[in-house]
């Protein structure tokens, strides 16, 4: 605190003007302005807005015109807009999922040709199994996700159809192309039979019942001679794979056939889930059935329809299974198969076709590629399944939604902690205030007070005591300007009790006709002492605010 201020009026012989006055160093008011303006909100380490890449140029109209034949669905939802700053034309791909699907399909199509040669065979076989299981899981996803029926008997339907068609093919010599059709019939019958309890039971009662049905199928086929209880399965059905081909060509054909099966299952999924049936069911999710029913939606009928359609498809897949593997083994009925299947659905996320496919890919890859691990690979799959269930609300494809919900929660938590007192209004108060200028005035006032508080020092007070009126040093001048600019109500004033002998400090009421109130009993001997008394009171009020 060693600074001096030179009074410019000294040379003009102004009364009581000292040449040099000790004062405080210069404090720039900009600092407190900057400190007030800087954001004290804790920023999240993650982005707060959705990011879309902006493609340059026109062309949104062309994308809007490209539709799937016979429907009004666009190939890709592209939005065209002008950049508000640069006024350049740009495009946004709002829904990128079709691109991901296309890339996935392309990968699956070229998959056999990009395999490393040393384990090409086992990976291709795994790819074939992936195709079949993905088809089964898509149909199962229709039952669990779209229809909301917790059936665990999907593999039982597939297995029954596979065993039935294999038995027919062996005993009556049916050709392979009939097997899926007959399988669909088996699936239809089986589906209708197990749909009967589904009309009355809900949720878990049905899940438990279908576990039992699965076990029934397993035990029955295991015990009966005509289903090959001795040989571990029923083998010898007709197959679509020509036996004269080389084994590489055979596995390639099998892979593409399984892929075609998966694609048709996807088509079915789209046709059921994306059309009227699926929309009806999306309106009647669990626990909101009563509302759907009240609006006239016959959700029970829709559920059973979806269930039966999926059962027919599962039966078709069963017939394909028999024609593919030349028969069927008991393992399709085992509890572990159901468990792994459910694991595939859960890991991917229930209610989404991409969830079924990606979940299947993960589990099949772990199951078939890590074959040498023995039971440990199943333990690994179980651990993945457990952690997905414990930490994610709806599988891998539910992460996005879950993350956004979590981020919004955090954002609102932060927002609710952001309230500064002392001059600035609380958010609730600010919305209630009619005069919005007041919000900014208070903000500015607080900032100014914060700055002025730092100016108050013994040097300034001494300077004022020496000479209350006239030219002052820069910090004192700032303080006095602030004090003088205060509004009239409760502003201090000086009352002459006895001229040149006694003065007293009062506070104005600010209302016409209402007398000022006495602030203190103290009598000041001179006008200048009273001025300084008022200054000290104001400084005290400032420091207390």
């Amino acid at each position, binding site marked *: 605190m060693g600074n001096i201020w030179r009074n410019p009026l000294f040379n003009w012989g102004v009364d009581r003007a000292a040449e040099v006055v000790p004062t405080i160093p210069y404090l720039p008011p900009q600092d407190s302005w900057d400190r007030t303006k800087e954001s004290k909100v804790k920023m999240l380490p993650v982005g707060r807005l959705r990011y879309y890449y902006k493609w340059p140029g026109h062309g949104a109209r062309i994308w809007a015109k490209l539709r799937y034949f016979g429907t009004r669905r666009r190939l890709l939802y592209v939005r065209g807009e002008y950049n508000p700053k640069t006024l350049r034309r740009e495009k946004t791909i709002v829904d990128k999922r079709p691109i991901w699907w296309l890339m996935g399909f392309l990968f699956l199509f070229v998959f056999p040709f990009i395999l490393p040669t040393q384990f090409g065979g086992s990976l291709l076989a795994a790819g074939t199994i992936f195709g079949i299981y993905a088809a089964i899981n898509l149909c199962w996803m229709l039952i669990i996700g779209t229809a909301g029926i*917790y059936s665990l008997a999907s593999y039982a339907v597939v297995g029954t159809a596979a065993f039935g068609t294999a038995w027919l093919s062996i005993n009556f010599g049916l050709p392979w192309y009939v097997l899926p059709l007959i399988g669909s019939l088996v699936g239809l019958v089986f589906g209708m039979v197990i749909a*009967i*309890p589904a009309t*009355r*039971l*809900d*949720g*878990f*009662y049905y*899940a*438990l*019942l279908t*576990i*039992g*049905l699965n*076990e*029934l199928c397993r*035990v*029955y086929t295991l*015990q*009966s001679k005509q289903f090959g209880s001795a040989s571990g399965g029923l083998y010898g059905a007709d197959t679509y794979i020509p036996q004269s081909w080389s084994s590489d060509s055979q596995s390639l054909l099998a892979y593409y056939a399984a892929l075609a099966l998966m694609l048709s299952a996807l088509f079915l999924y789209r046709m059921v889930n994306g059309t009227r049936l699926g929309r009806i069911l999306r309106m009647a999710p669990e626990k909101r059935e009563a509302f759907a029913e009240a609006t006239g939606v016959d959700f029970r009928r829709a559920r059973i329809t979806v269930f039966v359609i999926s059962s027919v498809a599962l039966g078709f897949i069963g017939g394909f299974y028999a024609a593919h593997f030349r028969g069927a083994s008991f393992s399709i009925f085992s*509890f*572990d198969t159901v*468990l*792994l299947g*459910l*694991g595939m659905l*859960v890991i991917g996320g*229930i209610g989404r076709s991409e969830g079924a496919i990606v979940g299947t890919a993960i589990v099949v890859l772990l199951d078939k590629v890590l074959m040498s691990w*023995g*039971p*440990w690979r*199943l*333990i690994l*799959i*179980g*651990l993945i*399944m*457990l952690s997905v*269930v*414990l930490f994610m*609300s*709806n599988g891998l494809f539910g992460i996005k939604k879950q993350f956004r919900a979590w981020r919004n929660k955090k954002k609102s938590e932060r927002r609710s902690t952001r309230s500064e007192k002392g001059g600035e209004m609380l958010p609730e108060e600010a919305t209630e205030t009619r005069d919005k200028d007041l919000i900014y005035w208070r903000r500015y006032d607080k900032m100014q007070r914060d700055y002025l508080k730092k100016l108050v020092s013994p040097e300034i007070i001494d300077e004022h005591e020496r000479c209350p009126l006239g030219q002052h040093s820069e910090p004192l001048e700032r303080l006095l300007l602030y004090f003088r600019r205060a509004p009239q109500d409760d502003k201090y004033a000086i009352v002459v009790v006895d001229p040149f002998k006694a003065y007293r400090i009062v506070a104005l009421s600010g209302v016409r006709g209402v007398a000022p109130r006495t602030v203190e009993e103290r009598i000041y001997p001179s006008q200048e002492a009273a001025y300084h008394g008022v200054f000290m009171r104001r400084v005290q009020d400032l420091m207390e605010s």
Partner: protein
Amino acid sequence: MSIADIGFILTNAVVLTCIYGMLAIGISITWSSVGLINLSYGFIFAAAGYGAWWASNIFPHNGAIVMIAGILVGALGGVLVCALAFIPIHDKPNFPVRGMIATLAISLIGSQALMAGFGPLSKSLPEIFGSGTIDFGDMVLTADKIGNVLTSIGFVALVVTWMRSSRRGLEIRAMMMNPHAAAIVGIGVRRTGFYVMAITGGMAGLAAVLLSQTYYISPFGGLAPMIKGVSIALCGGLGSVQGAIIAAIILGLNEAITGVVLGGQYVLITQFLLIILILLIRPRGIAGIVDRAREA
């Protein structure tokens, strides 16, 4: 078919009914109090069997220790399942589905771990109840059958009495009636969950010890008893002890009659037809209430 054969089948049916009934009561209590479908019951069953087998290797001639070891390992398994599948997610969205899948995952991990630890060969327990017999005219009752029936009924009676007369039992019953109201009046949901799972796990453990007097212990041996138990619990109405007892008797009779009239391989078929029939008439099982039995 002589009277002795029918008597043999009937006594077998009674023994199995008692054991499966105990499993069913365990599943039933778990569902109605903590709202969890415990599909890892089969794993708890198998683990308890292995625990009892391990105890029988250390104390070969002490039946009581073997039995207690089975019960304790079962209870431990129940606590483990509770800690993994109930405590972390019981207040999260989609709890029933996620809980069921979590128990399935535990079952997958656990059975494979048992397989990796003990190998696929099945183990057998020593005879706990000795090898004496009692003759009733043509019927011969062996000691293990009598022991099985008496022990299982005794244990269930003990559990039911405890639930009726103790403070903790009162808490569990309050949870079974209305979990939200129970939480509001100050009953700890998590703590009660541990009690329930420990008790039902202990039931599975005892059932494993008793059933291994007839069958063997294997890593996947718990699946069939669990499915029997689930079917009985379903048929009797989830959450009702009386219903489970009635359903166990009905299904046991069905098993005995089908075995005699049609042959053993049709038992499961008639059983499921019977269950479907019962559920079509009473969708919540024999003793279940048609309205929502358990909210949330």
